[in-house]
């Protein structure tokens, strides 16, 4: 009885304490730790906020998600915003080792329901983004992807109706990305095939998913525009592990180049592996950023699975590799810091994730003090700041801004080729499609 009364008294004190603090929606249980210092401002205790991370982190997706998530963590550890104590709410949208849109939508809802989450970095895959954007849009939670490249997420495109994704709040854009889009990446793929690999004929395959099919379709039109011929076009379901009928087809078609639109978890590594088995590794193969997922030493990367077939392969990423001198931090500094913290090289999208986080931190610095400790107000203020196309950001990718649709102003695609001496992707060149349109 005595303890029950003491417990009740403590509960009352806790409730009063949380009521006294400014209209923060933190639950009563954490009232003790929460900002008991009422009217926010730098004078009071730091406000606890979170950045949500939504990537596929397990199984075959680890080479994609983990370096990207680490980029966010690294940015948060290096850049402080006074008055705010920023932690991470990490989610994984991989189910059984493969990215899953339904899981992504669930994770987004979890992040939306956490009132401290002001911003989400992710996801990695375009089809997962299509499931998440409506959730974030309804809640007004800003989301920045370092890697989504499907154009249909922000503009008119056969794959998705970008307006329907934002149906709840069409005037309040909440989706941004620091990667550019596949209409450029597909054209870049054709550029590599025709101009670098000097191919006149190409066989094109995709993994039926939104990203892969979209990329392959753009490749086809771009390659034909350059003057090449597409001799075969197949859509191969992601569950396929036996590509022998396609390898046999290739033997008959004997194209100068094979282009695959898709991600490694859809089986492209096995396809290349089986091509090599049949002696077809002499035919160059290209893909998009879905296959640029790490060196041959990285478990489940495309290069690792392709084995002997890794030779003669090309890939692209939807962002700059060779960065302008105004990149902050510089690529060498970023790589050094990443290596010091994680004991390995940064991934293809580490810098882009870092840039997303920098945009958020800049927004928070700007709007944070004015919002008081009101988390809901902060969330909307961050979103509005990012949605304003007049803002520019100094980032690890250089200077960029988000346009009205949420796309980055940087339209650069980087070209990579497999280097047998390092067993890794080697940067060839990059093309700025603003200065050098297709």
């Amino acid at each position, binding site marked *: 009885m005595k303890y029950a009364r003491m417990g009740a008294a403590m509960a009352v004190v806790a409730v009063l304490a949380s009521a006294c603090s400014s209209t923060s929606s933190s639950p009563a249980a954490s009232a003790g730790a929460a900002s008991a210092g009422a009217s926010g401002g730098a004078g009071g205790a730091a406000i606890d906020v979170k950045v949500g991370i939504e990537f596929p982190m*397990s*199984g*075959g997706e*680890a080479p994609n998600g983990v370096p990207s998530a680490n980029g966010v963590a690294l940015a948060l550890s290096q850049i402080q915003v006074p008055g705010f104590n920023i932690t991470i709410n990490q989610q994984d949208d991989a189910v*059984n*080792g493969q990215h899953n849109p339904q899981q992504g939508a669930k994770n987004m809802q979890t992040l939306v329901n956490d009132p401290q989450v002001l911003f989400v970095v992710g996801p990695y895959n375009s089809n997962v983004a299509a499931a998440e954007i409506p959730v974030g849009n309804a809640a007004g939670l800003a989301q920045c992807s370092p890697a989504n490249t499907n154009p249909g997420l922000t503009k008119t495109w056969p794959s998705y109706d970008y307006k329907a994704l934002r149906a709840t709040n069409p005037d309040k854009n909440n989706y941004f990305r620091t990667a550019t889009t596949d209409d450029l990446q597909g054209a870049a793929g054709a550029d590599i095939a025709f101009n670098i690999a000097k191919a006149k004929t190409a066989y094109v395959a995709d993994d*039926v998913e939104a990203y892969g099919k979209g990329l392959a379709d753009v490749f086809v039109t771009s390659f034909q525009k350059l003057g090449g011929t597409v001799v*075969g*076009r*197949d*859509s*191969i*379901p992601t*569950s*396929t*592990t*036996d*590509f*022998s*009928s*396609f*390898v*046999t*087809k290739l*033997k*008959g078609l004997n194209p100068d180049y094979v282009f695959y639109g898709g991600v490694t*978890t859809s089986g492209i*590594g*096995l396809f290349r*592996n*089986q091509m090599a*088995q*049949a*002696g077809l590794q002499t035919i160059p193969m290209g893909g998009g950023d879905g296959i640029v997922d790490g060196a041959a030493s990285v*478990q*489940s990367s495309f290069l690792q*699975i392709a*084995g002997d077939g890794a030779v003669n392969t090309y890939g692209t990423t939807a962002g700059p590799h060779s960065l302008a001198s105004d990149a902050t931090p510089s690529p060498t500094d970023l790589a050094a810091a990443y290596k010091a913290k994680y004991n390995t090289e940064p991934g293809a999208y580490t810098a882009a994730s870092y840039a997303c986080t920098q945009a958020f931190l800049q927004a928070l610095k700007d709007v944070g003090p004015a919002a008081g400790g009101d988390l809901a107000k902060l969330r909307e203020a961050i979103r509005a700041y990012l949605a304003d196309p007049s803002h520019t950001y100094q980032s690890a990718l250089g200077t960029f801004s988000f346009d009205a649709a949420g796309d980055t102003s940087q339209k650069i695609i980087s070209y990579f080729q497999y280097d047998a001496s390092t067993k890794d992707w080697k940067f060839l060149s990059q093309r700025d499609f603003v200065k050098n349109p297709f």
Partner: protein
Amino acid sequence: MTTAPTSIARTWRPSDRLNGVISVVVALFFAYIVIAIGAHEQATDQFTNALTKGAMYALIALGYTMVYGIIELINFAHGEIFMCGTIVYWWLLKTLNITGTITDPLALVGFLALAFVASMSVMGVVGVVIERLAYRRLRNAPRLAPLITAIGVSFILQNIVFVGISNSVVTVPRIIPNTRIGIGPIAISQINLFVIVLAIFIMIGLHLFVGRTRLGRAMRSTAIDREAAQLMGVDINTTIALTFFIGSALAGAAGVVQMVYPGGAATKFDLGFQAGLKSFTAAVLGGIGNTTGAALGGFVIGFIEVIADVYGFSNWSEAIVFGTLVIVLVFRPTGILGQRLGDRA
């Protein structure tokens, strides 16, 4: 009270055999024509691809059909047993430190024999253990209980591999040199030839075992009527365990095939799900409970898939396979070689 008649029990007459062989030859010829129209010079290669794929599906389908024939359980864990067979092979390669093709023919034959014996015996034992632990108690339970248990076992096996071995693709070096053997005007990769011949050999062996030996007779009688067989002195538990052993051993053999043939050489913890689904479809297509039907169904599905790929319908291949199943079942509910369900006195 008779259960649904199963064709393990049906006796062959000589005219049946002749009709069967003729139909198969005609069907293969027709399939070759269809492939040739789409694939031109690659027709022979694609034909061999179809036979190889079909052989693998058939090997797995046999296990499904045998277990169903004897205890009327669809063993959903069977696909995972196939997947575990691939893991046994991978483990063997790793332990023996083999990293490339084996060029010495004697060593190659020796290793393959070892791989098959190891995989088949290990998976056979695993199959028997699963039956003993998970299914035996449920033999007389309502049909749903063992079905759900089988699904549970399949998840358990998947997870053991997911956590214990790898959560993504595991590739292995190919050990058989990819030389092509000329048979008359045709050149076939020796790996494909090996797989097809092996599969046919196994299927004929199984057919003879079930049809001609005492143990096979025990299996057939248990399939027809369990109580009567017991009254005749058949040890039901041993017979059923033997069925599981053979079925799982076949899945283990299919696992080795998967790791050895050109379109495989890789495994993943969820490989069993897809392969099991297609093989189960093959077993149903051919007539569940009928071993010849299972083999037939396996080859039919192999051909459907390759023909779909040849003609550019690869993204529809799954739809076509299951669509074929539905259409066949609509007109012949017991499958192609299944017996018509009728009233038996």
